[in-house]
């Protein structure tokens, strides 16, 4: 900057003024709040000190490998951009305080097994009494109704019930796990969309909303072509490694180095000719075995061996750059370390390294959409009960003496 001027005003926030109360655990609920918070909503995460979020307790990675309630990256990564308070809902006075928060909120997010919120006096029906226009998002494995509604479970297993595991792996091998609770994050996206649409409807009609989100059913949206294929063709789609019914070469090819790979997808004849030239093997394009997409798919094993022999001499970066330079789709299989060095993710400021009292510094993740006028702004994840003072005094307006009494009585834990 060569001109000194007054500091620019911070950009406006798209969701400024939206108030969210989060009674949620693990990932599927809290991540909805994170996404609302990073665009400016005021999100209050309600936690228990006697029964903390499992991600605070028994989920690595921990800073310096030393466990602690504020030392796990797994809690941090899903809970930035919100305020954290502690409240004991098992205490007779707990529900009364929770209801004050609910009266303040525009949106309530919960992801317990159906029945838990009701036992805590916070069912949709109870909450609607206090706040008729609340948007109440219930996210659970199987939905609020049906014979399996009460089934407990984690996303890492639900991902298998939802068909993703069956569709991952080599054709002759076992189904492969996807990393972590894959389906939770599908439910997060759909939950976020549902809340935003309900907010718009409420602005125009004043109407509140109970949203019953079955994580299972959200996952099936990602599987729709396979479900229709079964419906109309009777086919049970199965795993096929990295092969594609429409492209060849199509796979992850070994590169120079330990466990280094580059993905290549050749979709047209022009791309195939360019791929052969870039690899220094124009004669492949003349080979009858590879003369068409169908021929290449029929000889995919031989094709993969030739491509792999070429890529093995190059690093993944060299392979990617060589092929992209001639318009062939190629991309290195990024490891976690590569993601943090990826120039494109860096350009988009995906990693937001922020100070944190116990983690020192932590990389929070910005959303995949950049809004030109109202960019996301991330704030560090809360320590357990970090914002009790602000939320109870400033947001709920409780007098100091009342807050002290609630702390002394174990209501605010």
């Amino acid at each position, binding site marked *: 900057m060569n001109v000194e001027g007054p500091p620019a005003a911070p950009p406006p926030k798209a*969701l400024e003024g939206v108030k969210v109360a989060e009674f949620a655990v693990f990932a599927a609920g809290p*991540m909805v709040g994170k996404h609302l918070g990073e665009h400016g909503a005021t999100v209050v995460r309600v936690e228990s000190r006697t029964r903390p979020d499992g991600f605070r307790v028994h989920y690595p990675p*921990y800073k310096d490998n030393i466990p602690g309630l504020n030392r796990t990256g797994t809690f941090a990564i899903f809970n930035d951009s919100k305020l954290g308070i502690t409240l004991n809902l098992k205490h007779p006075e707990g529900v009364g305080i929770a209801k004050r928060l609910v009266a303040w909120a525009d949106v309530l997010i919960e992801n317990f097994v159906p029945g838990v919120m009701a036992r805590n006096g916070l069912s949709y029906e109870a909450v609607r009494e206090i706040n008729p226009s609340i948007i109440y998002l219930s996210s659970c494995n199987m939905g*609020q109704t049906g*014979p399996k*509604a009460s089934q407990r479970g*984690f996303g890492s*297993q639900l991902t*298998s019930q939802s068909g993703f595991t*069956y569709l991952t*792996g080599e054709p002759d091998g076992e*189904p*492969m*796990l996807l*990393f972590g609770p894959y389906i939770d994050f*599908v439910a997060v996206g*759909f939950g976020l*969309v549902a809340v*935003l*649409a309900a907010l*718009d409807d409420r602005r*125009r009609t004043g109407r509140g*909303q109970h*949203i019953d989100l*079955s994580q299972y059913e*959200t996952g099936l*949206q990602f*599987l*729709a*072509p396979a479900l229709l*294929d*079964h419906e*109309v063709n009777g086919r049970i789609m199965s*795993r096929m490694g*990295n*092969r594609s019914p429409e492209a060849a070469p*199509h*796979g992850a090819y070994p590169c120079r180095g330990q466990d280094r*790979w580059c993905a290549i*997808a050749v979709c047209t004849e022009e791309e195939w000719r360019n791929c052969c030239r870039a690899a220094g093997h124009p004669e492949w394009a003349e080979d009858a075995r590879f003369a068409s997409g169908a021929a290449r798919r029929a000889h995919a094993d031989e094709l993969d061996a030739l491509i792999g022999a070429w890529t093995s001499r190059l690093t993944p970066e060299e392979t990617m750059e060589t092929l992209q330079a001639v*318009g062939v789709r*190629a991309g*290195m*299989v*990024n*490891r976690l*370390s590569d*993601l*943090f060095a990826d120039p494109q993710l860096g*350009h988009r400021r995906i*990693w937001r390294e922020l100070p944190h009292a116990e983690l020192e510094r932590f*990389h929070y*993740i910005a*959303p*995949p*959409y950049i*809004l*030109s*006028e*109202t960019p996301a702004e991330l704030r560090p994840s809360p320590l357990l009960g970090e914002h009790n003072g602000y939320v109870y005094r400033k947001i709920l307006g409780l007098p100091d003496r009342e807050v002290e009494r609630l702390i002394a009585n174990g209501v605010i834990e």
Partner: protein
Amino acid sequence: MAGENRSLDDRVGLLAPYRVLDLTDNSGWLCGRILGDLGADVVKIEPPGGDPGRRGGPFYRDDPDPAKSLAWFAYNANKRGITLALDTGPGQRLLRRLAQRADFLIESSPPGYLDARNLGYRALREANLRLVFTSITPFGQSGPYAHYRASDLIAMAMSGFMSLVGEPGRPPLRVSLPQAAMWTGMHAAAGTLIAHHYREATGRGQHVDVSIQASVLWALANAPANWSLLREDLHRGGSRIVGRSMTGARMRAIYRCRDGHINFIFYGGEAGKRSNEAMVQWMAELNEAPEWLRQKDWGAFNVASSGQEEIDQLERPFVEFLSRRTKAEFAAESLKRGILGYPVADVRDIRDDPQLEARDFWQPVKHPELDATITYPGAFARFSAPACRIARRAPGIGEHNDEIYGMELGLSDDELQTLRQGGIV
């Protein structure tokens, strides 16, 4: 704005007042589908001859006809369809006219393509300051890879997803059914609605720049935290869970059973304790629990500090026990007993799941052009009111040209005829 000239007066839905122009290819279809499910009036704009994504399989009765692509059906339901040649002057003028009356525009062309035709965000904002303009590209509108080409496989690789999936020592894997466009369409809908919220408060639209690579990042769950805190790469564990133990131990989660596989895990914590005890109880009732396992104190079991030897020893009786069960048996008993786990379901298992039946998840959709009714996966969520459902099947190529260009834009039959002859629509 979009409230005018509704051709469907009975449309309901949370987003019913709004008009969406959907110029995406299959990397962005889901975004418009979601907005349509929520009641928005979504107009899919295809090039004359049809969206190239229609050429992707699987197809209705395996007939490779662009009018019968099942992915097209799945992700373009709840849209009307028109054709428009954006490479022509008259086509560009028509899009500008449509954009003046629209609330949203979603597109997935390479960065610069629309700008070069004076149809990019800057140009259309001149005509409609309120427009929310969402662009979906593999890597984003700018940056070192902005002009790189990609596909589902490339996006799954560059997002890091594949590095965590597959057998150790064998190639990293994607999911065999393309997923990157799903993550992207869903996130694009969220980003679009966040911009919408701001527009409704201020009257100002904006440009929403969605990256497919970044959209898949959340499929990595908490994995990036391992690098942030410990500078550790996690390695794919095949059918075993990695990253749950500080010792680096891997825990089996996929177990072979009589007719397929089951995903079961012995967890720690309170939830794990209840589940593990219930599982051992089931085994004991069938006399298949070794004495040491019956005596196991699960309250003292901590996944995060367990070593590989302990994990391996623990999993053996479960491997044996589950190898003698079926998927259906496990589904029934895990539900009854509160065991954490599910079968590794295929599409038929899913179709037969009584839970989805009880929730009335499946939705029959009429396809008069095929003289058929096809059962679709239904709504992504249930709202107290109004319902989120499929109100119309995906459009045929140019199916609503007359309705939209004629009845809504007010073009005369002669004008439409000229456009048709010129290959504009």
